[in-house]
């Protein structure tokens, strides 16, 4: 376990190798091999570390490794007197980070493998570049996960943002891609603004940035009734989380981020990076637990995001965008869980979501790949026949996300809903409604894509629609086809995960022991210092089972409805769209949020910038130039005065002198000897005077 620092470093090494050497020299295979092998080793190390962690007693499962000094201690005053600002390069392994570690390395490895096939059409340097970015991402993500202090986490936090930027903009020649990348980075930066301020406040309050020390210190403080300093910290941190995890109001970047290659969407924008916000909130569970007001905010933001994203997801036609909104929605669920104090449930959902959402994205990637870069579901249909593996695996993913037992999503989602119900029925209502919509739009996706009749272009000639001239498909398209094994194999592995991952969290009501919750518990309680107050009221198993049945029934109904609308009677969907034309338009346009932001924040900033530039040129520089002009003008006035008045006098004097000197200038013969003679006269006079004076 002392080698956990190697885990992030290995992909970092791969990234360096691919980036510095690979782009120029590696073949596609070598580049892929380097990336995959570093990830594989990292995965093995993670498993070893995780097993090591399991081998420890439950309350000693915390292992910190300091690699090197980063910022050496510098004295700085804090709320409690003079502290020492110090951040080492230190990594910590505890149950929460252990779980994340497995998710990141495991799914990361699968997606690396998948990418080998997916990216094969790119030019050689492009492949190495892609793997360089991907490895770099894993490096930063693992740093984020393992970082033992806020600032080290922030390194990973920002780093994954960079990689996301690079990967979204991977096809940088496409304007929309580079726009999306920029948008992602800047929106994330807004969140980071809050995050970094939160970090500063953490230091100011606690005098340290180490997670564990902070948690222990916070555990000793009373739960805040009003809005105190802990609440402020948590609010700032949560702003950071909304940026990274795409919550209201900063969720707008995530759908756009689908411009990136699909494995990227799967890895970064579904399984790992976007969950960093949830991870961060879970990491600081103790802090949040002491700030109930913020918890309430988190829960509401979470549920609203979930609901809003789900509604938008209902009407999207781009296969990846549906998944993107689904991701936003599921992330909302996780925040809902953390907001009601069910950190373990949130983390559990995070993990299961990682499986099935990665699966869905990779499946969609496979579809897009097979359809020659076509993403519009209206131009698909009936693909089941052409790509059975993809269909079946994706169907498993959809069932899982819809919350049908006994697949993974059922357990995690149900746990969340159950805990929400305990907390507030209003939240539960919205959450449950969202769950229904989730089931509906997921099966809408499955149905439109794989079932029904084929609506896509004829093959034998290049696909219609926009020419994806940047896609790199040089060859003619021969119709929808199944993807190569490197792509389907990860699908299958993930499908297995999506089926079985839930069993580690079987709730007590179903006879399980909720292994995951007990495993994660130490991470959320500052090691026994704090216990959730929620234990107090608690429904009977029967009620819990009732809730489960209700949600399963609702989900099943939604699935059937989707089947009716999109397979049996495809016209019904259009009719519904016509019936609810107003809401449909609003949803299609994503509530006009982008437009709103564009009109206010972006435009405001740009106008402000241009305005200020004008100010800079006209006023600030104008003041300088004005000072210059004033000087010149006053000098001109002086000049006039000078020329005619002062100079007139001077000239008069000069004229008199000139006239007079006309006589005297005859003395200036230019003959040296005359001057010498004058000198001699002077000497004569001097000597004479000398003699007489004596």
């Amino acid at each position: 376990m002392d080698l956990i620092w190697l885990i992030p470093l290995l992909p970092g090494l791969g990234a360096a190798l691919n980036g510095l050497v690979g782009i120029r020299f590696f073949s596609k295979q070598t580049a892929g091999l380097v990336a995959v092998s570093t990830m594989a080793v990292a995965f093995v190390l993670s498993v070893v570390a995780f097993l090591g962690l399991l081998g420890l007693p439950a309350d000693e499962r915390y292992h910190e490794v300091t690699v090197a000094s980063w910022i050496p201690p510098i004295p700085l005053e804090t709320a409690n007197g003079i502290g020492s600002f110090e951040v080492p390069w230190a990594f910590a392994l505890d149950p929460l980070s252990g779980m994340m570690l497995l998710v990141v390395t495991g799914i990361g490895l699968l997606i690396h493998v998948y990418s080998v096939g997916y990216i094969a059409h790119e030019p050689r340097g492009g492949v190495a570049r892609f793997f360089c970015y991907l490895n770099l991402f894993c490096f930063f993500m693992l740093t984020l996960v393992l970082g033992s202090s806020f600032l080290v986490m922030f390194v990973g936090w920002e780093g994954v943002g960079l990689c996301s930027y690079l990967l979204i903009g991977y096809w940088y020649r496409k304007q929309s891609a580079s726009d999306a990348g920029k948008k992602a980075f800047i929106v994330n930066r807004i969140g980071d603004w809050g995050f970094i301020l939160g970090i500063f406040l953490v230091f100011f309050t606690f005098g340290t940035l180490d997670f564990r020390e902070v948690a222990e210190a916070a555990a000793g403080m009373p739960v805040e009734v009003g809005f105190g300093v802990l609440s402020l910290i948590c609010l700032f941190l949560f702003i950071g989380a909304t940026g990274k995890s795409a919550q209201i109001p900063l969720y707008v970047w995530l759908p756009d981020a689908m411009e990136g290659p699909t494995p990227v969407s799967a890895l970064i924008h579904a399984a790992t990076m976007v969950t960093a916000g949830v991870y961060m909130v879970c990491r600081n569970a103790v802090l949040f637990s002491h700030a109930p007001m913020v918890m309430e905010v988190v829960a509401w933001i979470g549920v609203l995001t979930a609901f809003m994203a789900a509604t938008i997801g209902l009407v999207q036609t781009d296969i990846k965008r549906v998944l993107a909104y689904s991701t936003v929605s599921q992330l909302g669920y996780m925040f809902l869980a953390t907001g009601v104090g069910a950190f373990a449930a949130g983390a559990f959902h995070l993990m299961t979501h990682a499986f099935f959402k990665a699966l869905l994205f990779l499946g969609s990637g496979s579809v897009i790949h097979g359809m020659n870069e076509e993403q519009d579901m209206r131009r698909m249909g009936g693909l089941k026949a052409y790509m059975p593996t993809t269909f079946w695996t994706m169907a498993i993913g959809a069932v899982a996300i819809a919350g049908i037992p006994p697949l993974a999503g059922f357990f995690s989602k149900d746990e969340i809903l159950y805990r929400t119900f305990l907390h507030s029925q209003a939240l539960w209502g919205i959450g449950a409604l969202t769950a229904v919509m989730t089931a509906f739009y997921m099966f809408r996706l499955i149905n439109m894509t794989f079932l029904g009749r084929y609506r896509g272009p004829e093959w034998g000639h290049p696909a219609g629609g926009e020419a994806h001239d940047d896609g790199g498909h040089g060859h003619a398209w021969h119709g929808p086809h199944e993807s190569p094994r490197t792509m389907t194999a990860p699908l299958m592995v993930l499908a297995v995960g999506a089926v079985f991952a839930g069993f580690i969290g079987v709730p007590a009501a179903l006879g399980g022991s909720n292994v995951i919750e007990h495993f994660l518990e130490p991470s959320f309680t500052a090691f026994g210092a704090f216990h959730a107050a929620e234990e107090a009221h608690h429904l009977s198993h029967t009620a819990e089972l009732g809730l489960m049945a209700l949600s399963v029934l609702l989900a099943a109904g939604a699935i059937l409805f989707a089947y009716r609308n999109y397979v049996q009677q495809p016209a019904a969907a259009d009719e519904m769209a016509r019936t609810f034309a107003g809401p449909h338009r609003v949803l299609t346009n994503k509530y006009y949020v982008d437009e709103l932001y564009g009109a206010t924040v972006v435009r405001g900033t740009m106008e402000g910038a241009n305005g200020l530039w004008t100010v800079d040129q006209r006023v600030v520089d104008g003041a300088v130039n004005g000072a210059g002009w004033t000087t010149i003008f006053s000098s001109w006035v002086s000049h006039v005065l000078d020329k005619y008045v002062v100079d007139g006098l001077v000239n008069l004097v000069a004229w008199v002198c000139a006239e007079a000197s006309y006589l005297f200038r005859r003395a200036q013969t230019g003959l040296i000897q005359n001057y010498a003679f004058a000198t001699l006269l002077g000497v004569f006079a001097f000597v004479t005077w000398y003699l007489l004076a004596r």
Partner: protein
Amino acid sequence: MSNAADTPSLLSLILFTPLAGALVLLFVGKRQVDLIRWIANATAFLGFLVSLPLWFVYDSANPDWQFVEQMEWIPSIGAQYFLGVDGFSVLLVLLTTMMGVIAVLSSWNAIQTRVKEYYIFLLMLQTGMIGAFVSLDFLLFFLFWEVMLVPMYFLIGIWGSDNRLYSAIKFFLFTLVGSVIMLLGILAVYFYHQDVTGVYTFDITQFHELNIPSDLQWWIFLAFFLGFAVKVPMFPFHTWLPDAHTDAPMAAVLLKMGTYGFIRFSLPILPEATQAFVPAVVLLSIVGIVYGALVAMAQRDWKRLVAYSSVSHMGMVMLGMFALTPVGITGSIVQQLNHGISTGALFLLVGVVYERRHTRMIAEYGGLSKVMPVYAAIFLVMTMSSIGLPTLNGFIGEVLILQGIFVVNKTWAFFAASGIVLGAAYMLWLYQRTMFGTVDNPKNENLPDISAREFATFVPLLLLAVWIGLYPKPFLDRLETSVDKVMMRVNADYTPRFAIAAAGDADAQRLTVDAAAPGVEATGTLVLPDVPVRGGAR
């Protein structure tokens, strides 16, 4: 001081190596362009080599001035030839010499007219800057300060871009006005010192022990402020910068003169006035950060954009310094280095494409990633460094500065931190507009990627950016005692780390919050070891 005894006149050597090169160049025929370039490059490189011992020999545990050289200069007015360095100067001198190499190397092809004069001015400028950084005599400092003006004026005026004469005169007047007022301040300190002690001297180490009455401090601070703020440049005095940024790498160092002046003179000599002026300076700094960033966003000229980003970054530097906390000041110095590295590199990068296309309009470019991949990669790293991405240098500086100011005032920190969003916005937009997209301008289609020589100029910058980002400890260590000395002046209660270390209280070095309160109580009563501030190297 034992270390300095081995290298008795190292500073003079560093100081005059570039000047010697300039002298040699005087005797080279001006048509022998290549010879001139080689000589200039060799000199600059030599200048860097001789400055390297500073890094290795400088004893970061020693709070005294090091490498001191002291001799009479103008005895009648008490001026001396008095050189010495502390942590600030060591880093800045090294930055200067390194940038000197890069500046000279990067001008290899860029300068085709009056090559000889160009290099002579460049080397003169380097000497001026080093001199200002190592002078411990105020008059000597002022001399070097003014010496810089002349080559800079010509560099802008002769080799500048469009409208260069206007820029040159603007720069000259701006800085000259500032300098003259600063000179008044210097003289005020000088005469006050004479008043109190009866000794005429320009010795800065003596000034650092001077307690000037606060109303006089007030005026002197204003005088210094004008002189230094123009050079920084702080918000209302910044308009010369976008016009004047001609010789990029050197100019990137030039800005450090102003901040160096603040930390070397304003803070330690005028502690009370400094504290009184904190809100005003901080306000201007924050305005500078936000304003610089916003105006940068509106630029259509690549270089002006970078120049305005300088305004923003230097606002950050000033902010950290006037936090008057050790973390803030440390961050401020680190940020100065970072600014030198990343902004210097960005200017160089602009220079690279300017050399190829002879235009700096952003709209003329686009899709350069395709034609110049290596260039795009370097540009990316430097962009990230500039916007403070962790693991690169900019982050360390920003985080220290913001943390340093945060503990003083949260509102200030809140607004200052907005700079990280705006910084990302304008830099990424620039990156997108120039590097991404398709190559839609046919003139860009066949641009050659950067050459080996150009690459060589970036390598040290890249390495430094990563080094400072990942392992800034060597840099921070060198700053420790110097920061503490400044802190002791501005905050009488402050207990310097070297005093703690000297007291042998090894645990106290790592002050945890729990231990801090009693620890500080205990160490706060320590009698400081009688540390001679005057150099004893002789």
